[in-house]
């Protein structure tokens, strides 16, 4: 689980990109509190070939990535 809540752009995307570059995970969950950051990261990981699913988690969003 990667938690990018409370981070301003572009830190959520930087954090997720770093995790993917480092570990190349087949699946990953990312926790957001900002819709804009969620949209940015979703666009980025989709371009890398991940399938995405968004789950509302209280006031936050959980993005589930899988290949």
């Amino acid at each position, binding site marked *: 689980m990667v938690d990018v809540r409370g981070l301003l752009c572009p830190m959520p995307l*930087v954090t997720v990109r770093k995790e993917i570059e480092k570990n190349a995970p087949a699946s990953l969950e990312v926790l957001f509190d900002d819709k804009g950051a969620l949209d940015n990261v979703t*666009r980025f990981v989709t371009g890398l070939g991940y399938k995405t699913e968004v789950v509302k988690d209280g006031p936050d969003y959980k993005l589930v990535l899988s290949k």
Partner: protein
Amino acid sequence: MKKINWPIVLAGGLVGLAAVVLTALGNPANMGFCIACFLRDIAGATKMHSAAVVQYFRPEIVGLVLGAFIMSVASKEYRAKAGSSPATRFVLGVFVMIGALAFLGCPLRMMLRLAGGDLNALIALFGFAAGIGVGVVCLNKGFSLKRAYDVGKAEGSMLLVALVGLFILSLAVPSLFAFSEKGPGSMRAPALVALLIAVVVGAAAYKTRLCMAGGIRDGIMFKDFRLLFGFVAVFVIALIGNIVMGNFKLGFAGQPVAHSDHVWSFLGMALVGWGSVLLGGCPLRQLILAGAGNGDSAVAVLGMIVGAAFSHNFGLAGAAASADAAGGVGIKGRIAIIVGFVVFAAISALNIQKQEN
């Protein structure tokens, strides 16, 4: 060919159009919108500085924050957050403003000046992009001001409440405030029209995350040019508007509220670019984030207001060229910009997180 993101193109175009309209209605030339100039005018109106030509409680600032607030609430995305290195953000805001006022404009006015044919702004654009490049290097090395946390709703609305309250007070009891009788501060679109236009722009800027620094930053970092479309749209629509209105004049000399001190315009805007990346967005974006409940961005805006007061109280701001003088950035302003670079380097170095193996 990247797919064009039409919402952000429309938002950028709306900003460009609003700027042309506000200028036609009375705002200074190439200054339909200028976050740095308008925060400076507010600092002057509240007597935080005594530069008599730049004092007015600009409704545009109030409208931008209010528009972002309304849109974030309507979108059910309003969320009060704070706690991400607020004191550091304050200092970044101070020096971003000092850099902007050396050049005589924020990144948004830089594009509006360029759209008016002011080629001095092109030099500043190169500086702005260079500063963003330095900021991107910091981000890639692990720079972070750490996360913000949920706070009470009141904390997220402090800047908005203060701005709206002071704006109403400035209309009800204008004698409390200082208002310029000549110079840029005396050139104003009608207050309520300016407020309304800015509310619409603020709402659009919130919804599309329009940011003058974000486009270049994301282009360098991620090859993501979505925000850059908005940046370009501001320029294109303002350019068309200026040509139609007969306000386009290509050249370096004789430009409104501008000077041709190229080295210090470049360096001033490089400071703005670097600081904007460290803050997570340009001055416009800081206002929009503050409206949507971000207390850290509100602190950055307060830093900018104090930076504006410093700029004029200490003689750091650039002087516009006139018939009698070439204008430019004086020795004190140059030293302040250099100090700004040193401070940003220290802030960057101290906030780079060690990479895990």
